[in-house]
């Protein structure tokens, strides 16, 4: 069985929304987000509730843009980085849409799109809302140290994006689409022995290379068939490793048509983010703003969106376990 599933009915991505934090708003893509929230707490009393509000706001904004009410939405898919995916669960409590919570670490946006597209393609749901979020402050306290603790970050470390993205899929062929979903490739967990939680790009790059190779083999395509290959948050280190791994595997990538959301979301020179951005929100806000904008502008016709996840927990990291990585991919095409 191939790992790639062709979506014969071409589910339609009819709307996307990206809600970004202040630092992200000051980044290179600041002009394309739907909303920039300058207050890290988003008017809430904890980082967790703030992140949940990002998630909720992205979902609501996306539904509004798609002209669909929560009652008309058949399923909400997605998650975040927090323990027990609380941000998504608390947002789903408010949205009242049938909810499937997903955890794929930073691959969650691609994972939710893959499942949403398959459910829509099969005709099981009419409208699927896919969303993912992350928040620098909530992730920092869960995975690393208290915010105000003055430790140094290593050069390979990445900066968790504060933000949430949501995309609305529809099975109704009469609805105007920003793009359509044609294939999904579900990733296998790959672990090449990296245990350094401050070098997640290196932990995730082999999974990205594996999924990409399987995708090319299953579909008979190569990198030249895509206007853009987009990875989630490999950062500079993972980006460079993936380029090299693909070269070794005989599927070389063209640097000008390969983009990593972690490198797009911040200006590494001026924003002190070291290897780049990370987190579920990273690929989610870039996809739901800039990528959809490029589809709308006709700048791209076919892309492979592949978000990668480092499936680590603080517990197993402290126990010395290596970091399992995963990457899920979905092909998005302009509506013919």
């Amino acid at each position, binding site marked *: 069985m191939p790992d790639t599933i062709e979506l014969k009915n071409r589910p339609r991505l009819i709307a996307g929304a990206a809600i970004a934090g202040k630092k992200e708003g000051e980044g290179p893509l600041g002009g394309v987000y739907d909303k920039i929230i300058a207050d890290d707490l988003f008017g809430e009393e904890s980082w967790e509730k703030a992140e949940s509000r990002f998630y909720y706001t992205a979902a609501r904004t996306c539904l509004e843009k798609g002209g669909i009410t929560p009652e008309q939405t058949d399923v909400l898919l997605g998650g975040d980085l927090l323990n027990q995916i609380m941000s998504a669960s608390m947002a789903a409590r408010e949205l009242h849409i049938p909810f499937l919570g997903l955890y794929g670490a930073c691959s969650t946006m691609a994972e939710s799109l893959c499942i949403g597209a398959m459910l829509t393609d099969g005709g099981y749901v009419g409208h699927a809302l896919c969303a993912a979020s992350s928040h620098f402050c909530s992730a920092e*306290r869960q995975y690393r140290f208290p915010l105000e603790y003055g*430790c140094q970050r290593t050069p390979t470390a990445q900066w968790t994006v504060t933000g949430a993205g949501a995309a609305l899929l529809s099975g109704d062929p009469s609805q105007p689409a920003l793009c359509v979903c044609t294939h999904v490739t579900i990733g296998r967990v790959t672990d090449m022995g990296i245990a350094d939680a401050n070098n997640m790009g290196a932990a995730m790059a082999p999974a990205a290379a594996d999924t990409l190779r399987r995708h090319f083999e299953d579909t008979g395509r190569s990198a030249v068939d895509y206007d853009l290959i987009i990875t989630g948050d490999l950062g500079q280190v993972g980006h460079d490793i993936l380029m090299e791994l693909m070269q070794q595997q005989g599927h070389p990538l063209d640097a000008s048509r390969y983009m990593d959301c972690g490198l797009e979301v911040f200006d590494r020179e001026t924003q002190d983010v070291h290897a780049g951005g990370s987190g579920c929100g990273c690929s989610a806000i870039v996809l739901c703003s800039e990528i959809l904008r490029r589809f709308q502008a006709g700048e791209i016709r076919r892309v492979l969106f592949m978000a990668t996840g480092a499936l680590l927990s603080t517990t197993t990291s402290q126990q010395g376990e290596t970091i399992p990585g995963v990457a899920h991919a979905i092909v998005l095409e302009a509506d013919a």
Partner: protein
Amino acid sequence: MFDKNSKPSPKRQAQLDRYKQLVDRISPKSALGQGLFRAWWVGGFICMLGQIFLEIGRGPLGMINSAASTFASTCIVFLTALLTGLGVFDKIGQYAGAGAFVPISGFANAMVSPAMEFRREGLVLGLGGKLFTIAGPVLVWGVSASVAVGIIYALITL
């Protein structure tokens, strides 16, 4: 993985070794010279402040030596706690690394930052339970090491 006796096959091990080499080659290294310089001047500056407080204690305030050094430590701890609360100290730490946390300022920051962070989970299980998450290991092993050294010292001076 679940079979405790199994080792990776030689082929797999070679693959893992090759990947590790690739990662080591591509991952940027910390700038050692720059790090040392920043730690040196910030750490030195904090120690100089301590010395100034010590002299103030001994001179104008007329304290005896032990009181003056307690006064100096208290001032540094207070200043660090204030800067932590104002959200400045983490930036100093990012800049200076060990230069900021090896002096007693590091200890103050390690106590105040969890106190601020976990206050939301309540005074007892939040603040109380997590206050020592960073300083705890230093205290446990610092005190243990000093006890061990003390015993060795007592034995050799018998």
